[in-house]
């Protein structure tokens, strides 16, 4: 299975199979070692999670503690990812198949994937703390849940969109040949959704690194909650002003991001290309050493043969599964009943949540609202300024990279890794550096926002520049348009749709950054500037739920309004006027 699939993706099957391969033995040894390593890691995690209550964890700043912390952080992210994926499959499927649920779920998902989640993390965490007794597993679970909240929405949205845009003829074959809903899901819907899901998984995991520090190290009132992990390591290092430990943590994180990129995302993206329906779509899996490597392993091939044998000895299917399938297949039975009760449950939860928020907000006075509005204005202007500054340098550079095939090949992976590196990790360190240079916190905030969001812009502009058709470029050269004129008549309009996408993601990231940068605890002192992000953090510190709810909702409101009033019209303009493929 795996082998055949890998082989044909590359179209080099015969090539490699006939080539004499001598080093199979040591490859198998390495695969075995990797297996053993995974087992050991799982044992370690089990040990950590089941150990008795440790209200405050002492984070060791020694280098040798880092691998263990890294592993624990990684497992947290993986666990969150698994939950997010399950959530995606269930909720998006439900939204796509049940029109009533669709009307409620899709707007919610859309808003959740666009608001700055960091503003809601403290609220969720405070809630989790009251729900769980203060044991390790409770804290672990709340950290994982936090990571889920920053992974799940965009994945669910992508899966929903794939389900909705399934090509009509493929869907008809499923009907014609009598696929059950489960068969349709397995053979048709999940494969079709795979490229989108893979891409969004990359974004989601990168997102969870960004939020790692907030999830692992957390201060509410006078209580300090910390879970062993890279995020809390960095937090402690900054707090104590230990520069060397900060560098270690940054290097570790960088290594993790690069390793994940090489070991997980590249092979997975290359593999997902086979699910691309549009054959003309850009396919550039490049050469992947890991895929080549895995294909050589005899051990994996043996496992795969075993699996195939097992698959083809047909077992009678579990009765329960069959019943469930039939229930869903036959209208008027289990399916609608189930959907209706789920719907009622969801609406009840929503009503309950809405009610408690309203009750909280009743405690916020008009003068406090005014204060928050002003803070929102300050943060908004920082976000916009940073996006403007980032555009200034990424637009020319991105165009140049995108239009040079040589450089886009070389630099794209670098940009990808840079975008995946959680800049939140180094914010505090950089603020201290800026302060040393005499730059105020307000200005530093803008600089840090540029730092964390410029990659989204660069990435999108490069992608846009690559789609500029060669004939249009040749035409503009043939008519001797000056560089300046070429920019305004061809390059800028052509990348405009991509630029808008970049702006939306960049401003979203900048809002998140505002929460981390506007107030910083470092070297036993607290620096803060005026802004909505700072208000969120201070409300958490004081444990003032009304204040926290008001500021978080205000931030979400500003973002949603901005999306509707500014980015929405720009999107439409981009689609109608500047789309190149119409």
């Amino acid at each position, binding site marked *: 299975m795996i082998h055949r699939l890998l082989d044909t993706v590359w179209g080099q*099957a015969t090539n490699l199979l006939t080539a004499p391969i001598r080093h199979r033995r040591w490859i198998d040894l390495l695969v075995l070692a990797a297996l053993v390593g995974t087992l050991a890691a799982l044992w370690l995690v089990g040990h950590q999670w089941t150990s008795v209550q440790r209200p405050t964890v002492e984070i060791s700043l020694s280098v040798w503690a880092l691998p263990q912390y890294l592993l624990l952080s990684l497992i947290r992210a993986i666990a969150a990812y698994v939950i997010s994926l399950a959530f995606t499959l269930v909720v998006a499927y439900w939204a796509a198949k049940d029109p009533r649920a669709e009307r409620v779920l899709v707007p919610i998902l859309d808003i959740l994937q666009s608001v700055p989640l960091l503003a809601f993390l403290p609220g969720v965490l405070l809630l989790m703390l009251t729900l769980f007794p203060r044991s390790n597993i409770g804290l672990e679970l709340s950290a994982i849940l936090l990571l889920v909240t920053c992974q799940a929405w965009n994945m669910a949205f992508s899966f929903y969109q794939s389900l909705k845009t399934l090509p009509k*003829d493929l869907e*008809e074959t499923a009907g014609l040949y*009598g696929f059950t809903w489960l068969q349709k899901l397995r*053979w048709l819907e999940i494969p*079709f959704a*795979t490229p989108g899901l893979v891409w969004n998984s990359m974004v989601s995991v990168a997102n969870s690194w960004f939020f790692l520090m907030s999830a692992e190290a957390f201060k509410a009132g006078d209580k300090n909650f910390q879970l062993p992990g890279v995020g809390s390591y960095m937090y402690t290092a900054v707090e104590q002003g230990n520069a060397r430990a900060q560098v270690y943590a940054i290097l570790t994180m960088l290594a993790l991001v690069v390793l994940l990129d090489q070991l997980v995302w590249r092979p997975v993206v290359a593999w997902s290309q086979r699910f691309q*329906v549009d*054959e003309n779509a850009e396919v550039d899996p490049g050469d992947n050493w890991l895929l080549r490597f895995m294909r050589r392993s005899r051990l994996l091939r043996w496992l795969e043969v075993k699996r195939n044998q097992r698959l083809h000895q047909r077992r009678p299917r579990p009765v329960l599964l069959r019943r469930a399938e039939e229930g869903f297949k036959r209208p008027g039975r289990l399916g609608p009943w189930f959907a209706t009760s789920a719907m009622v449950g969801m609406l009840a939860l929503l009503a309950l949540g809405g009610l408690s928020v309203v009750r909280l907000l009743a405690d916020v006075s008009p003068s406090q609202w005014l204060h928050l509005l002003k803070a929102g204005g300050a943060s908004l202007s920082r976000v916009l300024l940073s996006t403007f500054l980032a555009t200034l340098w990424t637009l020319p550079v991105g165009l140049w990279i995108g239009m040079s095939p040589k450089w886009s090949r070389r630099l794209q992976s670098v940009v990808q890794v840079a975008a995946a590196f959680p800049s939140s990790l180094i914010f505090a360190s950089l603020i201290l550096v800026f302060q040393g240079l005499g730059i105020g916190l307000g200005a530093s905030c803008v600089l840090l926002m540029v730092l964390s969001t410029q990659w989204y812009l660069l990435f999108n502009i490069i992608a846009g520049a690559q789609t500029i058709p060669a004939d249009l470029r040749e035409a503009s050269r043939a008519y001797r348009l000056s560089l300046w004129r070429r920019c305004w008549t061809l390059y800028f309009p052509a990348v405009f749709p991509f630029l808008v996408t970049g702006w939306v993601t960049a401003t979203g990231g900048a809002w998140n950054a505002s929460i981390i940068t506007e107030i910083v605890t470092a070297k036993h002192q607290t620096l803060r500037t005026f802004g909505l992000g700072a208000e969120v953090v201070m409300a958490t510190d004081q444990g003032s739920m009304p204040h926290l709810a008001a500021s978080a909702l205000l931030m979400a409101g500003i973002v949603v309004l901005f999306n509707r009033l500014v980015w929405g019209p720009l999107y439409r303009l981009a689609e109608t006027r500047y789309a190149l493929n119409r």
Partner: protein
Amino acid sequence: MSLNHGVPVCELRGIQMRFSGPRGKVQRVLEDIRLDVRPEEILSIIGPNGSGKSTLLRILSGLLEPSQGEVRFHGERLEGLNPGVAMVFQSFAIYPWMTVEENVRVVLRARELPESEVRERAHQAIRKVGLEGFEEAFPRELSRGTKQRVGVARALAVDPEILVMDEPFSQVDALTAEALRAEILDIWADKERNPSAIVMVSQSIREALLMGDRVAVLSGSPGTLRTIVDVPLPRPRDSRSQEFMKLVDHLHDIITSAELPDVLVTAPVPSAASQEDQVEPLPMVQSADILGLLEFLETQIGASDLFLVASHTHVPFEKVITTVKAAEMLDLVDTPKRAVLLTPLGKRFVNANMDDRKDLWRAQLLELRLFRVVRDMMDLEDGELPKEALLQELATRLPMEDPEQTFETIVAWGRFGELFAYREERGVLTPE
């Protein structure tokens, strides 16, 4: 030669199909279709775009439920999917993430067959269409013709009684299509196995006659069954034989008289709209196509034949018909029987320079009630007619047409005649 006297495998009785479009508008696609599929026959279906050929196939296979009427399979009313039908799609519809073999196997697995039978039958189907050696290939590695072979193999694998094909060869090149047609005929002629009947929608009259024992001609929008032509020629058929050519001519005449009647019949508009609200439906044609037609006729000294136009210009017959229809509406051509003649006005138009052409075009447009309506509405709205307002007007005045498409045609014709301009971003029509 088969004698088609058996009891029908499948019967369509009084089929009507309506789709409810946007704005709650009901679009009628099929009107009172009565058609049998007999055992041991190939039934070709032809007709212009929008006559509901594909819809008819989907009703036959049970993918769509007719708004009225019923489908009978072996005399029993069909509920849900037709158990005897497998379909070959125009766009192949094979799964890009599965190999050739998996694509065929997957439909057998859906039938809960034991794995050994799944393999055996998939293997046989693949062998039947000559795809041995391609089992492990992914669709993206295959040519269009080979992809359609996979589509055929998948359909054959489930051993259907009726093989339904929706313009199966329109997306493959001419040579491959020729080969595929011959292979399908071979497979069908092997009476040991299914399929017993083949129902094929075709775009070309020649193909319909090469394959079919009977050719059903649909016409108009909504589609009605115009007639069914028997094809008593032995196989293999020679498309250059005299008998064949005669049948081609016969079908041409049927289609022409249906689509371009010599006596002008206004389409019946069964709606609340009173007689004077009626406007002519516009053929969805670009002005450039009409210009091209006129220029072509000019090279033929002002007169040609519908089918000569199609074969000389390599434009599909259906499109030629709509273009001629449009030119006739504007009084630029005349169509006695199958001939297409430039009218005196048409001659003046072709020989005029661009400015005069536009003047003539504009004058002709204003002869059409629809364009006068648009102009009057624009005056009423102080020179800025919103798209939405016009769409609503079109929906009530032309309930059978798609208002968006009509709107696009109005804009294209109006722009060419400099009658008005359309600003897409604001969605308003303004006078030029």
